[in-house]
């Protein structure tokens, strides 16, 4: 179990619940949810978030624009970001990486895959910070 707070950004309430439950089963029970990029930016200002999991296709502000905004904001620019999306073309992945997403999962995913990705990102972030 870890006390790390994870922000889940997805317009689908089903997917938010699935990610929340998957995170609980792999030891990350502390989560906060947002329905789109705009909502997530508001959550970032009101909550201490340690990690972001975001979808790509969302109304109001999509995941890619949200990531760009986060990276452009000094307070949040180094927050680890994992993108979970149905968009699985090479072009999509490159575009997300160019927006400085830390890692990428194409749906469907398993709780174990989610855990490995999060731990991988945290390890890389720690190495880079050291």
């Amino acid at each position: 179990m870890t006390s790390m707070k994870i922000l889940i950004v997805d317009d689908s309430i089903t997917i938010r619940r699935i990610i929340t439950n998957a995170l609980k089963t792999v030891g990350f029970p502390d989560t906060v949810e947002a329905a789109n990029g705009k909502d997530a930016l508001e959550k970032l200002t009101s909550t201490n978030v340690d990690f972001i999991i975001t979808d790509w296709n969302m109304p109001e502000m999509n995941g890619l624009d949200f990531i760009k905004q986060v990276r452009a904001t000094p307070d949040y620019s180094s927050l680890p970001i994992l993108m979970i999306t149905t968009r699985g073309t090479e072009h999509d992945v490159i575009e997300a990486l160019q927006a400085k997403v830390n890692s990428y999962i194409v749906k469907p995913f398993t709780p174990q895959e989610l855990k490995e990705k999060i731990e991988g990102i945290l390890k890389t972030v720690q190495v880079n910070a050291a």
Partner: protein
Amino acid sequence: MNQQELDGILQKAAELKVFCEYGQRTVPVLDEIAAFVREISPAIEDLRAVVEVSMVNIPRAADQLARVTQATEQASTDILNTLDRMVATLDEVIGSVASGMVSSEVGAATKKMAAIVKSLVDKSGWDEDIVKLAEAWDIHVQSLRMSGPTSNLERLLKDLQNDCTEIMMALQVSDITQQHIGTVMGTIQAVAEGLRKLTTGFFSTETAEILQPQPTVQVQFEQENVGEVERKKMVESLLSKARAGQL
């Protein structure tokens, strides 16, 4: 009339001659065009009928796809609610089973012994031998649990909980379906918009007004023509390249 005026008239006459000759050549072409238009007129009427039907049917199809999306989302929510209740119930049952020996005779004796051992530890002022006895007792109780009938039940209940998690994860399919339906709807709307423009510019009928202008839809043309495993490999390969600064 001087020579200059005469030359002017002759010039005009020459131009008129050229024009007439041109007209003689173009009239048959115009006749051919008219014949062609008469010939394709029924086809244009047929096309108009197809467009008119499409402009009614396309919004209807989009509406039906939206209903599928809503129904899928609602069903997923209902299943998730049920699974949440099942997982909570299983948590409770697993908790009861873990301490389930209390209800059996062995359980009552074990509980009594546990109280005695605890009392001994407290009274002895954490005497080394008594603490060792307490530790040995804990191991004995754990082995009783592992070998007892309840341990099998506990394992089965945990298996059920894992199954619930798997069902929950499988519900991702609803979102994946919705996303793909969304792309199809975008394409349909783009076609509808094209037809609307066609009717406005070509047929100039009232049907052009049936379909209101739709917002520009971004259609994803790049096909995801690889399987799940290949796609994940591709993602991992790109992530490695990004980490190595090769993107």
